[in-house]
């Protein structure tokens, strides 16, 4: 049992992570000096009763969110009294983001090794590595606090986001890490320990701590663990590309605290990343202009990922951009079948390389799970599966492959006639006959459709969002996948990542359920929200809607980390990595070191986002592999910024998975690389009927 102590205005997420892991927990509230309000009664925080109460827990998480320039003192007892509670019976107490500053009236013991921050003497009391990093840029998450830390117990470095202290700056919020006295640390012996120190890839350009002190993000003092802040306020969405969305917080430190407390979980959280568009290329890419060269990057990246994934039980749901077989130039199909998808003279080579990629994917169904992702379906914003019900697709084409259910020229209904709940129609027979009586279901209730509009044509007009269109669309996309060779994929896995994250509405939901699908990816943003409710438990007849968020490298033509000619689409802007020009103003004069700042911030945010989506929302992240387009085709697996041409080339797939893998290795009792079925099982495990 873990006690999570919150102050006001904090949300459910630490508890959500513990629930996901199957770790029992209780929540207490502490915002009055004399009252720690727990489910078992209110205690005076300095009382012996309180101390005895805390002793029943395996660990206590005190989740603070206090600015270092605030003099709010209600929780001062957590330092002034609790630091003396260090008998063997006292539990480990984790202070997340404790504002250890001089303005609060804190009186820690004389041997306490962390320096209290004095904002009037910043350089000697706080390690402030850059200016105003706790200020968000644009719509982006608070990505500028991305760091790489060295975990001294594991002797490993991980990217994450971390600040221990924050305070108001001139333009936004400043942040820094603790400074620890080496002399006091030494005197403490086994009772003091530095757990995490900065290990930035650009450490050499950063300020040195004062002599005799060391910067630290995590410190142990007896049974008291001083961790980075968990709470991140302010920003409201992951990227400007998406609907408002809960902001990912620094979940890494919660999971790492569980490890330090030696609290074992009942369940592991599977990390699942999804891909869209397996053979997409971009016309006129600024760094890799020829599409056939982009295919080399994709091929090499997939080969790397195949080997990476096989060793780690990683399986990637992979959206086959379907429909190109029926609507030319709208799908991955075209890359295999049309020479004019490529630059002049490259057609045959392009087709061959697309085929090589297909073969690689087909040979690794344990790592790549292809499924339906049809952008050709009309929609309000051209994304498919729109749920608008208003759109008529005037030239819809279905498939003609034999032995399916709805291929042309089978007679299919395309618009409802008179519809009865089955059993309530005044007819001699309630059985569907394939001519004038057809069946469909909604919410588990079967309906009989009498004399609907039918057709035997291959091409006709049909209204989107109906169960009839959904059946035709999904079956033709499955037929296309079969023809590509993905016989057991998608359908066999019974999960799909819908185009544009759109869920299609009830007609589509019913059809997914008919086809036996278990789940589909759905944006939980406001505009396209599937059935209302807790995003961790959205169901329609057993079909799960899995929340996901985009973690693409960059936008538009995928210029990569930073290109002055495409700055708005670059990762630096897309992820809000630069606020004051600290990266772009020095891009060429201090290359690649300034780019390294961007990489550190980006990867720290990526790791947090991935862990947070899986741990809190029990969801996934997704991206488009064409984010590898900026790689040099001569060296597709090039590591970050090792080139010298100011292009910021690096392989996003390699860096993305490697960065998350470091965190997964460190937190291996709690998270793992997983398959979508492990995630769906976990979601099912936690779902129970509302009775």
């Amino acid at each position, binding site marked *: 049992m873990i006690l999570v102590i919150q102050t006001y205005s904090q949300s459910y997420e630490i508890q959500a992570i513990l629930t996901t892991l199957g770790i029992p927990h209780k929540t207490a509230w502490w915002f009055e000096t004399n009252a720690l309000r727990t489910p078992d009664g209110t205690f005076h925080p300095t009382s012996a009763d309180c101390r005895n109460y805390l002793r029943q827990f395996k660990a206590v998480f005190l989740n603070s969110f206090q600015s270092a320039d605030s003099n709010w003192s209600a929780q001062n007892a957590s330092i002034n009294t609790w630091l003396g509670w260090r008998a063997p019976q006292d539990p480990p107490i984790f202070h997340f983001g404790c504002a250890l500053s001089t303005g609060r009236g804190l009186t820690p013991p004389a041997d306490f090794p962390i320096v209290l921050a004095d904002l009037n003497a910043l350089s000697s009391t706080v390690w402030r590595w850059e200016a105003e990093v706790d200020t968000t840029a644009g719509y982006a998450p608070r990505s500028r606090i991305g760091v790489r830390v060295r975990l001294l117990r594991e002797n490993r470095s991980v990217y994450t986001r971390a600040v221990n202290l924050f305070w108001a700056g001139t333009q936004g919020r400043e942040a820094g890490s603790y400074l620890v006295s080496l002399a006091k640390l030494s005197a403490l012996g086994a009772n003091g320990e530095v757990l995490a120190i900065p290990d930035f890839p650009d450490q050499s350009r950063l300020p040195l701590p004062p002599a005799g002190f060391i910067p630290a993000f995590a410190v142990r003092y007896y049974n008291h663990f001083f961790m980075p802040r968990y709470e991140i306020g302010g920003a409201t969405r992951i990227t400007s590309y998406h609907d408002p969305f809960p902001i990912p917080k620094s979940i890494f430190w919660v999971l790492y605290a569980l490890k330090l407390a030696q609290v074992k979980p009942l369940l592991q959280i599977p990390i699942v990343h999804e891909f869209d568009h397996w053979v997409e290329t971009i016309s006129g890419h600024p760094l890799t202009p020829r599409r056939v060269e982009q295919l080399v990057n994709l091929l090499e990246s997939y080969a790397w990922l195949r080997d990476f994934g096989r060793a780690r039980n990683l399986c990637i749901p992979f959206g086959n951009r379907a429909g190109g077989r029926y609507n030319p130039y709208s799908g991955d199909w075209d890359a295999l079948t049309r020479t004019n998808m490529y630059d002049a003279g490259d057609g045959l080579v392009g087709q061959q390389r697309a085929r090589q990629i297909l073969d690689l994917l087909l040979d690794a169904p344990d790592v790549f799970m292809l499924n339906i992702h049809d952008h050709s379906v009309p929609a309000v914003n051209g994304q498919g599966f729109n749920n608008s019900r208003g759109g008529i697709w005037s030239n819809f084409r279905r498939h003609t492959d034999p032995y399916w259910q709805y291929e042309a020229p089978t007679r299919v209904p395309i618009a409802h006639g008179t*519809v*009865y709940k089955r059993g*309530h129609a005044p007819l001699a027979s309630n059985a569907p006959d394939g001519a004038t009586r057809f069946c469909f279901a909604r919410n588990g209730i079967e309906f009989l459709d009498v004399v609907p509009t039918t057709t035997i044509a291959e091409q006709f007009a049909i209204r989107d969002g109906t169960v009839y269109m959904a059946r035709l669309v999904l079956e033709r996309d499955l037929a296309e996948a079969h023809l590509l060779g993905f016989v057991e994929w998608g359908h066999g896995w019974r999960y799909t990542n819908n185009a544009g994250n759109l869920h299609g509405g009830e007609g589509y939901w019913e059809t997914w359920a008919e086809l036996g699908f278990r789940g589909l990816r759905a944006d939980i943003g406001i505009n396209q929200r599937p059935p209302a409710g807790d995003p961790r438990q959205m169901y329609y007849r057993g079909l799960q809607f899995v929340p996901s968020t985009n973690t693409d490298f960059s936008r538009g033509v995928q210029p990569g980390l930073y290109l002055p000619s495409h700055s708005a689409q670059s990762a630096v802007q897309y992820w809000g990595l630069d606020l004051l020009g600290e990266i772009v103003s020095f891009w060429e004069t201090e290359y690649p070191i300034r780019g390294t700042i961007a990489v550190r911030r980006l990867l720290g945010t990526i790791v947090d986002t991935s862990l947070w989506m899986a741990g809190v929302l029990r969801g996934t992240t997704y991206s488009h592999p064409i984010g590898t387009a900026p790689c040099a085709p001569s060296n597709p697996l090039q590591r970050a910024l090792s080139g010298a041409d100011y292009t910021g080339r690096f392989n996003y797939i390699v860096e993305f998975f490697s960065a998350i893998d470091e965190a997964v290795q460190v937190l291996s009792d709690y998270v793992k690389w997983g398959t979508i079925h492990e995630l769906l099982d976990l979601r099912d495990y936690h779902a*129970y009927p509302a009775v």
Partner: protein
Amino acid sequence: MRPTLIGYRRGMELVPVTATNALPVVAPPAIEPLFWGSANATVASAPSPSCVDLSGSTSPETPTVVNMGMYHSLVWTGWKSNGTDVNYAVYARATDPNGLPLHTFGSGVWALVQQGTISTGTSAGYFRVLIRATDGGALGYDHYRIVLCAPASPPTVISQVKGIR
């Protein structure tokens, strides 16, 4: 009471089923959709079973919906295509144990349950009609025929009927 071998999971906990702790069931919906259809109202000043029903049928002995005994009330929501008022009537009848009407020919085939006029003002629009027994009890009939007529300019009426158990 000893627990049985049957149990169910509530969160992390396995709950045994006992006489006082029943297996949770998903309650059937209290209101459920039964019918969707479209019809052009008959040109007539007063409704009769010969007028067109909600599915477009003009056969006076044909019910609009059957097997309706389980519903105590009906909610009829719909849309009509112009501002002409529509007169409607709801006819009902009971069936024998074989599902055949108690009386199938001549006068007295149908009992008139409810009639009225639907107005959506001067233009097309949505409407809602609640069909229930005048004594406040359950309707309880097995067959219903819901018909439409208008003296002139009959609109198209698209209907959905829901049953309330």
